[in-house]
């Protein structure tokens, strides 16, 4: 599981790659928690290279979402593959997030 964060003018782009399974989510959790401080901005979660997600990963996304609602920011999920779209569907996340 790898993650890269790039700050631009008004938005933060977070690029995930690999499997966001339980250990993968645990690994990136501290970094992601730090990012919620900046939830007032637009956070783009780029999932182009993400192949798998489990509930632990979904929780990170949900945390971002809740934080942005609190701080008036915005969370956009970009480029999810079919498997992940399927998981989003099963959990109702498709309706929760703005997905590009």
């Amino acid at each position: 599981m790898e993650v890269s964060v790039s700050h631009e003018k008004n938005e933060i782009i977070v690029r995930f790659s690999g499997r966001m399974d339980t250990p993968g989510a645990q690994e990136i959790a501290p970094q992601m928690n730090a990012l919620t401080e900046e939830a007032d901005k637009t956070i783009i979660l780029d999932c182009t290279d993400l192949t798998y997600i489990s509930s632990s990963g979904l929780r990170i996304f949900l945390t971002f979402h809740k934080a942005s609602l609190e701080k008036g920011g915005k969370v956009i999920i970009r480029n999810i593959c079919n498997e992940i779209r399927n998981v989003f569907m099963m959990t109702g996340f498709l309706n929760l997030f703005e997905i590009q």
Partner: protein
Amino acid sequence: MKPNRKENKGIGMTLRARLLLVVVAAITLEATSIIQYVYSQRGIKQEASLRAESELKSAENKIMDVVNQTEAAVRNSIWVAQWCLDYPDSLKRIPQRVVSENPVVVGSTIALVPGYDKKYPLYAPYAAQDMETGKIRMLSLATEEYDYPSMEWFAKPLESGESYWSEPYFDENGGDMLMVTYSVPVKDRNGEVAAILTADISLDWLTKLIGGIKVYPNAFSMVVSRSGQIMVCPVDTLVMNKTVDQFALESQDREALDRVNRAVLSGKSGETLVRYKGQNNHVYYSPVERTGWSLSIVLPDKELYKGVRRIGLLVNVLQVLGLAMIIIILRIVTRNQTKYRQLYEQKERIENEIHIASEIQMAMIPKTFPPFPERQDLDLAASIIPAKEVGGDLYDFFIRDEKLYFCIGDVSGKGIPASLVMAVTRSLFRAMSAHETTPERIVSLMNYSMSEANENNMFVTFFCGVLDLTTGQLRYCNAGHNPPVILTDDIKELPVEPNLPLGILKDMKFVEQETFLQYDDALFLYTDGLSEAENIAHEQFGDHRLKEALRGRKRSEEHLKNIAQKVALFVGEAPQSDDLTMLFIHYLGNASQSSNHLTLPNDVKQIALLPEFVDAVAKQVELDQEAASNLNLALEEAVANVMMYAYPEGTDGEVDIQAVVDGKSVSFVITDSGAAFDPTAKEQINISAEAQDRPIGGLGIHLVRTIMDTVSYERKDEKNILTITKTYK
């Protein structure tokens, strides 16, 4: 199987070759003897010819001596006779003198031509030498009975006026002997023939002379007069009674005899071949000057070639003996060769039988590798490299009731007896293990059978093991065999009770031992042919080289090949002293990562191992990637739940996952020994709720429920057991 006879060609001599050899030898010998015979014959003939010629010459010379003496005796008296013609009474002294002064002359006369003297119309005083006394008697030939003027010796020279040698004749008047007469006409002053002066010579001396010519023992000589009368001949009866013509009549070879006859009569010398009375005769002939006689030597071929015939006979006898020897020697040699061939065939047959025995022996032990290609939990390989054609090593294995029964053994001794015992051992192993389940029982029963009928005191070092493939439990019993090597994280000897080899003590109590094999553990069994393999310097391969060779994980077959190569490299040129037998058992079942079973320690990081496990299970029901991914997600959520809730953070524990694949359904049984925790008791979450209303937890079990068809929990034996099942249509 028929013995291979191809190589027999070239050994031994075929009957034809032997026959040919004898024939060639016979021809060579015969040709040699014929050549030798012909040349000897020719040489002998030449020599005989030379000898005959020289004999003839010398005989002729001797005859000529006598002839000359006789002629001289007569001639020397002619002038006296002429002188005495006028005084006929004095004439009688002349023959007297001729006889007395010439020893060769046996009689002499001077016979007046009838009517020459008035006083004596017939006058012929004859002086004869008495052969016994040597005295000279005076006789007169002028008798009525004798009628000398008609005699040849008188008539011929009177008629021709020349001297004349008479034909031989038997003189009854004078000497009562065979004689010839030399006559010379005596002329008076007017040149008229007045008287004939003669000298007689006996043919006795001629007979003696001719008889003395012995060119060869059975050869004989003849003197023939000019009319063909035989004068001298070893057969007395022929003398004067037969002419050469009569011989010719009797001969089967008239033509040749005629030839001789003519030649002889015409006074020529030479030689010819005459067939007479069934025999070939060489006749050498030569004329005697002036007398008209012919001297001949008759040499029967039989006689002439007697020597060479004898040699020829001897040679023939030797040839036959030689040939007989050759045949005998050939027979002896052939018999020996037959013996060798028989020995060779026997040897070949034995080797062949040993080879068959070896094949039978090899057919007994399983040697198709991998032996259980369908099994994921076992990788087994074995090999025997025999030192001799047949060895006394064995291994065997089979699976019954999910248990691997295996053994390795080494029979004392080598060769066929060892291989027989090996066959018996293997049969006993199969027989005993067919209904016995513990190595101790198998080994004890085998030992009992083998000790009972062990008259040759053969024994077998034996190791028998039973590996439970589901649990990894290994029970084993060692009967004097060298300890196997166990490969775990470490490489070390499996601890074994030495016990006694099989076949020594009937009531031996064998101790059984037990251990557990974990996933990826391996057992390497071998016979002392491996550890005691020697190089030229008599160093042994040894345990340290073996352990070195066993390092690293590879397929069992590769391990064996690698070890065999290392041993071959180590041994080099030294001959393989003992059978080299190896059995490699690589256990890939039970305790952990078998395809349908997984045990994870309590650590969420272990969840990373799940995708591989699930993939293997998914393959069994031929799931696509999305379904496999969902299955993985459900399992991950279930396991993560256990790790997060059943075990308080930091506590040790294990999560055991058993996948059960049944036709079109997949179940995971997740067991842990943590605190009681029922995930199904959790409230269902509302997935259509707004974000702020959604709890952080509960998503996992929601996913499990969504993906799987049934999710059930039970608490049993202080364990949480969660079973999740998905059925595919």
